[in-house]
C-alpha cells in the first residue's frame, strides 16, 4: 500500500530536474526585446537567432526581419518575413513588410510564384481530411443505401458523384502537396554577414568552384530552388577546400548553377538538407 503511494511521488520527483532545465522561450524573447529596445540591434539579432534554433514563432521572425530591414540587409529581412508568414499567413502587416523588402532589394522579379491560397502548402491537411471523409462517408453511405434502394438516383449515379468528388479532392491535395514540396526546396540568396556594402552579387557558377564562370548573377533576396537527386536529397558537392556547394535553379528552371552553403538559407527547415550538412561537417 505504501509502495503504491510512493511510486507516483518518486516519478514526479525524478521529473523535476528536467522541468527546471527546460527554459521557456518567452524569457529569452523578453531578453532579446530588451536588447532591441536599448538600441543594441546586433546583440538582439544574436539573441533572436539563438532562440530560433529550437523554437519558432511568427513574432520572433517578424522582429528578426525588422532588425535586418533596418540594417538594410534585405536578403535576410525577406528570409525572416517569409518564415514569419509561414507561421501566420493572415498577417497583412507582414505581407506588406515582405513586399517592401522585396521592392528595396530589387528582387521583385525573382520571387517564388504565389499559388492560390487554397492550393498552398497550408491546406494540405485540409484537403487530405476532406478526401478521407468523402472516401469513407461515400463507402459507408453507399453500403447502407444501395441495398436498401433508398438512393434518390441510381447506384451508378451515386458512384459517379462519389468518384468525381474524390477526384476533385485528390487534385486539390496533389496541388497543395506540390506547393509544399516546392516550399521545402526554396532558398533565399543572402549577402555575407560581414558585408557592409550590401550590394553583393552572388554568381550562379557553372561548376562547383570559386574560379568557375557564372551562368547568372543573383541578388540578395532572390528566391531559388535546391535541385534534388533521385532519392530526394539535395545535389551537393564538397570541394577539396571542404566547401559545400549546392546545385540550385530558378523557379522557371531557366537558370541553374552552383552556390556555396553560406550564400543562401532555406525558407523552411529542410530536414534532408540539414542532415546532409551534418554529415558533411562530420566528414570534415
Amino acid at each position, binding site marked *: 500500500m505504501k509502495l503504491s503511494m510512493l511510486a507516483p511521488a518518486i516519478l514526479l520527483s525524478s521529473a523535476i530536474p528536467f522541468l527546471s532545465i527546460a527554459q521557456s*522561450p*518567452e524569457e529569452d*524573447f523578453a531578453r532579446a*526585446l530588451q536588447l*532591441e*529596445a536599448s538600441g543594441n540591434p546586433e546583440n538582439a539579432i544574436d539573441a533572436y537567432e539563438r532562440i530560433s534554433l*529550437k*523554437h*519558432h*514563432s*511568427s*513574432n*520572433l521572425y*517578424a*522582429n528578426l*526581419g*525588422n532588425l535586418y*530591414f*533596418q540594417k*538594410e540587409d534585405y536578403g535576410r529581412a525577406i528570409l525572416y518575413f517569409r*518564415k514569419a508568414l*509561414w*507561421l*501566420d499567413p493572415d498577417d497583412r*502587416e*507582414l505581407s*506588406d*513588410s515582405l513586399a*517592401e*523588402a522585396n521592392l528595396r532589394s530589387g528582387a521583385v522579379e525573382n520571387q517564388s510564384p504565389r499559388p492560390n491560397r487554397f492550393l498552398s*502548402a497550408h491546406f*494540405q*491537411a485540409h484537403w*487530405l481530411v476532406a478526401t*478521407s471523409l468523402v472516401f*469513407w462517408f461515400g*463507402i*459507408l453511405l453507399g*453500403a447502407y443505401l444501395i441495398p436498401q434502394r433508398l438512393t434518390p438516383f441510381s447506384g451508378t449515379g451515386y458512384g459517379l458523384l462519389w468518384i468525381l468528388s474524390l477526384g476533385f479532392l485528390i487534385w486539390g491535395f496533389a496541388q497543395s*502537396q506540390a506547393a*509544399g*514540396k516546392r*516550399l*521545402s526546396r526554396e532558398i533565399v540568396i543572402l549577402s555575407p554577414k560581414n558585408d557592409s556594402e550590401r*550590394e553583393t552579387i552572388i554568381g550562379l557558377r557553372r561548376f562547383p568552384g570559386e574560379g568557375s564562370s557564372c551562368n547568372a548573377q543573383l541578388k540578395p533576396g532572390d528566391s531559388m530552388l535546391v535541385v534534388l537527386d533521385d532519392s530526394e536529397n539535395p545535389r551537393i558537392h564538397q570541394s577539396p577546400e571542404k566547401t559545400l556547394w549546392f546545385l540550385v535553379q530558378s523557379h522557371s528552371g531557366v537558370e541553374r548553377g552552383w552556390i556555396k552553403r553560406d550564400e543562401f538559407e532555406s525558407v*523552411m*527547415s*529542410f*530536414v534532408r538538407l540539414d542532415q546532409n550538412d551534418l554529415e558533411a561537417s562530420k566528414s570534415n
Partner: protein
Amino acid sequence: MLRQILRAFSSILVGASFVVQAEEIRIEAFFEPSTIPLSHSSSYRIVVNGTQKVPLLSPPAVPGLEFSSNPQTLRSASWINGVASVKLEFIFRATPKRSGRFEVPEWPAKIDNQSLSVPSARLVVGEPSPQQLIRQKEEKDQQEKLKSAAFLEFSSPRPFLFEGESAEATVRLFLWDRLPVTRIDQAPLKRGEAFSVSELGQPSEQRNVVRENKSYSVFTWKVGLTGAIPGTKPLGFTSVIAVRVKERRDSLFSNPFFNDPFFGFGRETPIEVTSDETSMEVRPLPTEGRPSDFNGAIGNFEVVTGIDTNLVSLGDPVRLTYSIRGAGNFSAMPAPTIKLSDSFKIGPPNFKFTGDELTKHKGTQDFEYVLTPLKSGSLEIPSLSFSFFDPVREKYFSRLTNPHPLLVEPGESWNAPKSENPAPARSPATSSRRIPSQMKLEGGDWTETFAVENPLRSIVFWASHCSILLAFSATVFLRSRNLDPLVRSKLQKERILDAKLRNSIRHKDAYGFYQALRRRIRLRIGLACKCDNVSALSRFEAVELLRQNGYSEELVRKTDELLGACENSAYGGVDAEVNELEPILLQARSILKKIRS
C-alpha cells in the same frame, strides 16, 4: 570586234548629230486614232523633227477633252535617202468627256530657242455603241448594288466640333449577308484633312441587322474624332473588303452578285467601300472669357487632388495625384502646370489614363507629381485651378481643388544634388527609413518544428484510416457470419423473386408476376414470423401467422387481399390487366416493408 562595231556606231551618231544640227525644225501634231467612240481614249501626238533637245510642251485646254499631264517621249534617229534625220515624239493621252468634234488650235511652243507653232489637230468622238451603253449601264447597276450591299455609315454625337474638341463617333460597316466577303482588308480610313481620328481597335460585330428588307452584318468601330482646322470641311471614310468572285474576269458575272462562293473556288478581289462624304463644321474656340490658365482642355471635367500622406520628414517625397475625370479631349490634354511656393520641389508628372484607351474620350486621367518639401513645419499644398471649355454650354469654366495641409517634421536639411555628382542610388544608413512593421512585444504561439509536414507521413492519419477499415471489415464479416444459413438462403430467394417480378413487368407476363409475388409475400411472412416451411403455407395460414405475431388488422387484411388476387390470377384463371402490374408491385412493396418492421 564588238568594240570596233560600237566605235563605228558612235562615230555615225556623232556625224549624224552634226548633220542634224543644220536641219530645219519641223512640228507635226495629230490624234491617233482620230475618230473614237465616247468612253475610249486617243493619243495626241506631237512630232518634232530636226532637233534632239527636249522642249517643255503643254497642250492648250480644250473644253470636254482631258490631256494627261506627263507625256510619253520617244526619240528616234534614221537615215532617209542618205540623209540623217532625228525626231522627238510626245504622246499625250486624250480622254473625251462628251461626244462631238474637238479641235486643238494652233499653239506656240519654244523649241531649241526658236519660237515655233504646233499645228492644229482634230478629234472626232462618236456616240457610244449599244454594247458600250449596256456595259456602262451594267457597271452603274453594279455600283448601285455594291453600294447597297456594302456601305459605311459615320455618325457623330455632335453636329459640329470646336477646334481641338474630341467627340466619340462611330463608324459602321454594313455587309449584306449574301455578299461573299472573305475578310475586311482595311479598317475604315478617314478622308478629310481637317479632322484627326484616334486609332481604331477591334470592331464589335452585330449580325442580322435588317435594313430595307436586307439582312446585314454590321461591324462598328468607336473612334475619337477631333476637329483640327476651323471651317466647314468634308469628312468621309473608306474601307476595303475582300470578296470571292468567279475566275473569268471578262464575264458579266464576274461581279460579286453572280458569284460562285461554293467550295472556295474563284478568286478574291478587293472592293473599296466608301461612306457618303459629309461636311462638318469646325468652329474656332471663342476668345471671350478665356481664362489665363486655359491650356486646351475641352469637355466636361471634374478635378480632384490627393496626397498619399499628411506627415513626412523633411526631404521625404509626397505623391500628389491630380485626377481629371469626365468626358473630353484627354488625348490632347497636356499635364496641368502646378505652381507652388518655394517650399516644394516638383518633379515631372507620371500619366495614367483609366477608361477607353483607344478613344480616350471618357475616363479619368491621373497626373502623379512627386513633391519634396524643402522646409519643415506646417505647410499647405494650395488650391489648384483647372480651366476647360465646355462645348455643349459653349463657355469656359474653372474648377478649384481642395488645399491639403502637410506637416513636415524637421530632419536633415535638403541639399540639392550637384549636377556633376549624381545622388547615390541607395540612401545612406542615417537617412530616415520607414520600418515596415511594428516590433512584436510578445513571443506569440511557439512551435518546436518548422517544416512543411507531409500529412501522408502522419501516423495519426494512417492509424485512423486503418481503424475505420478494420471496423468496417469487422462489421461486414460479423454480419455475414451471424446470419443463419436458412435466413441467408431465404434472403437470396427474395432477391431472385424481386428480379423475377421486374422481368415479368418488363415482359408483360401477368401469370408469372402473380406467381412470383405470391411466393415473395409468403417468403417474407415466413422470415418475419420465423416459419421455416414457407412453401407449405396456405393463404389462410399465412394470414393467421401474421395475426398471431401481432401485426395490425389492416395490414393483415391488405395482405390477405393481395394473396387472394395472386391466387385468382395465377391459378383461378382470372385475366389480369397487364397495365395494373406496376401499381400492384408498389402496393406489395409497401406491405412487405411493413411486414419486415
